[in-house]
């Protein structure tokens, strides 16, 4: 039984070098999501801002004329925060703490520090900052590359298999209409793209982008009276890898946090892998998608390479994945855009990338050094 429903989604234009601030992106996406739900800004009584660029909740209280904010929180897990916020919003609503939760995100990375600088302002990265950065281990790509390399050495996973993820995700972005990337790529383009930090080539890496995305959560009962087909949260779970603050010290480099969350989320949702019609998988790097597909249980550990081959992740494939173009080719909205896309898919309003008849879907988050979140959603009845 669902205890919460997503009733509104919103996105800004996705660009680079935007003249608009992170706060402007957050407010615009939020107002779009609230209007999409058929609500007014003053109806919001809970806010969970996402990410280190998130404006404090006091901004929303003032700007939206919220007279009675009953719930606010921050989920400090980077790219896992959006799924964590969805879970937390559902829990707060089910507990009766509040009725309508806004989850806003927005950023302007063009004017600020790049990811390789940003992470060193975060306390969870302090071991990296103190012991590894001076050796030249600076950016997320470098932190995660040894995870991918170990997987390749143990299981024979190839760069071409990473490339298949880059190519299918780009195909989906071209259908989205909002994607930052507007040219198709081939596997040859992927293989020819410059090496950033082995085994990650440029086309294995996600985008730095500007914009905002937001969603609104309320009770299933209230959702039935609002503007859109509700999308119900069936089950969710968070999980953290061993040695969560140091990848270097992690016993098994090839597993991430969703490995611990997946079974819990499927059990809570009461569905099986075969029920998943569409998946939005956190894709900061191609390999991270492949690793999560294993850790989610769609295939066994080590079989992710062959699993992604043959078009399985493409529209029309067995498990259409990142149907909006993801962080790799649509925009890096910290997976708030993944939640938005899954909601659209389950409403049946995903446009050219619509998975026919999609009723049940899954979204994941991956944050910092592997914190994970999984949420399973289903199209509700109006």
């Amino acid at each position, binding site marked *: 039984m669902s205890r919460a429903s997503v009733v509104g989604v919103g996105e800004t234009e996705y660009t680079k070098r935007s003249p608009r601030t992170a706060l402007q992106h957050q407010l615009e996406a939020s107002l779009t999501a609230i209007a999409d739900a058929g609500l007014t800004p003053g109806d919001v009584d809970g806010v969970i801002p996402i990410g280190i660029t998130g404006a404090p909740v006091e901004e929303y209280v003032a700007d939206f004329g919220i007279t009675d904010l009953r719930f606010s929180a921050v989920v400090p897990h980077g790219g896992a925060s959006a799924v964590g916020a969805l879970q937390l919003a559902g829990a707060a609503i089910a507990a009766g703490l509040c009725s309508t939760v806004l989850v806003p995100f927005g950023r302007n990375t063009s004017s600020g520090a790049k990811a390789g600088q940003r992470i060193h302002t975060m306390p969870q990265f302090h071991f990296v900052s103190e012991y590894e950065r*001076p050796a030249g281990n600076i950016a997320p790509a470098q932190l995660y590359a040894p995870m991918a390399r170990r997987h390749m050495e143990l299981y024979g996973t190839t760069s071409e298999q990473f490339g298949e993820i880059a190519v299918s995700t780009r195909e989906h972005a071209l259908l989205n209409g909002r994607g930052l990337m507007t040219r198709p790529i081939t596997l040859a383009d992927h293989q020819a793209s410059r090496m950033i930090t082995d085994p990650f080539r440029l086309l294995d890496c996600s985008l730095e982008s500007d914009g905002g995305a937001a969603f609104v959560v309320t009770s299933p009962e209230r959702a039935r009276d609002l503007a859109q087909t509700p999308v119900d949260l069936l089950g969710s779970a968070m999980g953290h890898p061993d040695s969560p603050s140091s990848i270097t010290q992690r016993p098994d480099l090839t597993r991430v946090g969703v490995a611990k969350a997946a079974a819990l989320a499927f059990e809570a949702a009461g569905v099986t892998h075969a029920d998943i019609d569409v998946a939005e998988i956190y894709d900061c790097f191609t390999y991270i998608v492949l690793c999560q597909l294993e850790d989610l249980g769609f295939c066994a550990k080590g079989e992710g390479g062959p699993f992604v081959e043959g078009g399985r992740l493409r529209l029309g494939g067995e498990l259409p994945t990142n149907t909006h173009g993801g962080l790799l080719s649509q925009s890096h909205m910290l997976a708030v855009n993944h939640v938005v896309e899954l909601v659209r898919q389950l409403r049946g309003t995903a446009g050219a990338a619509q998975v026919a008849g999609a009723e049940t879907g899954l979204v994941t988050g991956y944050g910092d050094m592997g914190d994970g979140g999984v949420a399973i959603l289903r199209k509700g009845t109006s």
Partner: protein
Amino acid sequence: MTEPEDIAAPYWRGAAEGVLVLQRCGNCGVVRHYPRAICSACQSELVEPQQADGRGTVHSWTVTHHAFDPRLADDLPYTLVTVDMREGVRVLGRLDGDTAPAIDLPVRITFAPGLDGTPVPHFVVEAP
């Protein structure tokens, strides 16, 4: 009032002298790295410095071709190795020399100045 001793001070003193100093739990004897306030196995605060053997084997690696810090532009490409030390902990550092990294490649630690002059681990391949 005295300033609290930085739990990482023995590591940095060792690094400055070119040796790897780990933490050994004074209660249960488990060796740990990176430096932490208490033992992950028994939660004891008791801790002793332990100089590492210095030898280990490569667990994984990345070869970096992009200067994420402009000061590293002249180092490109450089190899970062994750190394299983004999004491059961891992160390991340630079791999020196021309040998291609491989899982289980035997290496030995040294230290050299890194960014801002901070001493950082370097590894050289051990003769078989």
